[in-house]
């Protein structure tokens, strides 16, 4: 049985990846999961310098999911290279580094520094985090801005570039097309849906940031729909994510047109989720006598 998939020339042993920001750099979850079993570890967003993130409370539970407003706290790219990337060298899995910034120059600085790192297989550009005031989502909600940042990153990037798209737009296919036209090698979607929770006893917002990004099983149908829409709009490969909790959920995304999938908030619920989904996917293929996972990618038109 073949479970490997290829995106922009990078071969992944299976299509199961981690959702950026839900898995650190793999260190914490390596106690639960054999990272060698994963198609790729997608790291928490990293900026040119350390970011402190937002005030607390940063997380809240909602029906069938959660809100987060971490605000991309990260130690900066230099510490990331020295520590996190070094840690990942011992594993036989692909490494996708999520890159964030406040200005285009911030992104370019990180992309340039990561260019020398052979352990980095791909870059995922976060232009869709709803929880920071500057940068991030500002680049992901206007097609022209997305085109501009994508083409500038593509000019200097040494690794293939994935643009991570926001669902908080009128038409996500417009963003997918802009990324493709600017030379992106792939797109990943969806980032979180902007949400809000109010504490009705205290009459105030639950999150210090007022709004947060919603993730978890409750958002899956929205994500499947958007993956399917983008698969019909662009030729570049798609990494699908949003509420994946089981292998069956992963199959749904693959059938909608994703070449790979990422498991996000479910890591917090079940720390074994990624590995169980990778195992479950193999089981699904065997039970359905599918010899190659690529046969089901985009099979639902």
């Amino acid at each position, binding site marked *: 049985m073949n479970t490997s998939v290829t995106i922009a020339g990078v071969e992944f042993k299976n299509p199961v990846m981690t959702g950026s920001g839900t*898995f*650190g750099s793999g260190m*914490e979850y390596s106690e639960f999961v054999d990272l060698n079993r994963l198609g790729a570890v997608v790291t*928490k967003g990293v900026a040119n310098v350390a970011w402190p993130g937002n005030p607390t409370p940063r997380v809240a*539970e909602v029906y069938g999911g*959660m809100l987060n407003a971490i605000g991309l706290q990260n130690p*900066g790219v230099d510490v990331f290279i020295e520590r996190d990337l070094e840690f990942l060298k011992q594993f036989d899995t692909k490494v996708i580094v999520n890159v964030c910034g406040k200005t285009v120059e911030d992104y370019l600085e990180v992309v340039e520094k990561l260019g020398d790192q052979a352990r980095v297989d791909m870059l995922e550009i976060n232009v869709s985090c709803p929880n920071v005031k500057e940068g991030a989502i500002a680049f992901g909600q206007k097609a022209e801005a997305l085109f501009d940042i994508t083409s500038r990153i593509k000019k200097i990037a040494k690794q293939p570039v994935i643009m991570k798209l926001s669902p908080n737009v009128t038409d996500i296919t417009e963003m997918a097309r802009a990324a493709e036209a600017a030379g992106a090698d792939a797109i990943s979607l969806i980032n979180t849906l902007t949400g809000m929770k109010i504490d009705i006893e205290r009459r105030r917002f639950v999150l210090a940031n007022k709004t947060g990004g919603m993730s978890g099983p409750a958002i899956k149908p929205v994500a499947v729909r958007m993956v399917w829409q983008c698969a019909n709009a662009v030729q570049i490969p798609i990494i699908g994510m949003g509420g994946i909790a089981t292998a069956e959920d992963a199959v749904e995304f693959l059938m909608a047109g994703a070449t790979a999938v990422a498991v996000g908030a479910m*890591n917090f619920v079940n720390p074994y989720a990624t590995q169980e989904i990778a195992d479950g996917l193999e089981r699904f293929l065997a039970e359905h006598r599918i010899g190659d996972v690529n046969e089901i990618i985009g099979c639902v038109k």
Partner: protein
Amino acid sequence: MAQKKKALAGVLGQRQLADGIFDLRLKTELAGEAHCGQFVGVYPKDKSTLLPRPISICETDAKEGTLRLVYRVAGKGTAEFSGLKEGDAVEILGILGNGFPVEAARPGMRAVLMGGGIGVPPILQLAKELDCDKTVVVGYRDSQCFLREDFEKYAKTVIATEDGSVGTKGNVMDALKASGIEPDILYACGPMPMLKAIRSYALEKGILAYISLEERMACGVGACLGCVCKTTAVDHHSHVHNARICTDGPVFEAREVEI
């Protein structure tokens, strides 16, 4: 540190100790690894509530393989737990957090262990593990002084109640001052105003103090960065002034954190 696991625990029994306060006893392989001040994530069965609920360890018995969790019903998840009965099973994630440093209380030191409200339960295991001169100072809203008899087995116990129905009227700081005890080392768990007061008292008097913090949490294992607290110095892991309460804490030396 022992490897963390998600495991199925057997319910040995549960009883109500006070209004909204429940005492759950679990049989679990994880008990052998647990120390005072650590916690477990407890999973509701209702899949609309996905995240594990962080609950402190009130007592642990490695030999028997049992954990005692005393918690307050605060929402849907804990309301579900309050219905667990003998013979049921519940999923837990653990053992989480660093715990109280018992070795910091050296022989000859006078330790004061302070707990307020639902911060009272983890003080019990601490009282059991500490081997020095120790006094427990616990604060409650009213006369429902849960765990009082348990504390009296292990240490001199001073009570404060907000309504004055038992012990000193006021909070744990009032009770500590009224007792005249001069601690060499402090351990505390409780609501933020209480921890703030203890922290400033400790800093002013130059007393070593360890405080257990809480915050809204998602993963419980240090990955999501949801439950951070402000640190005085740049944190070794985050490289900013934030430490993860679930992993670097929940217990911090008072001088290390800004609360």
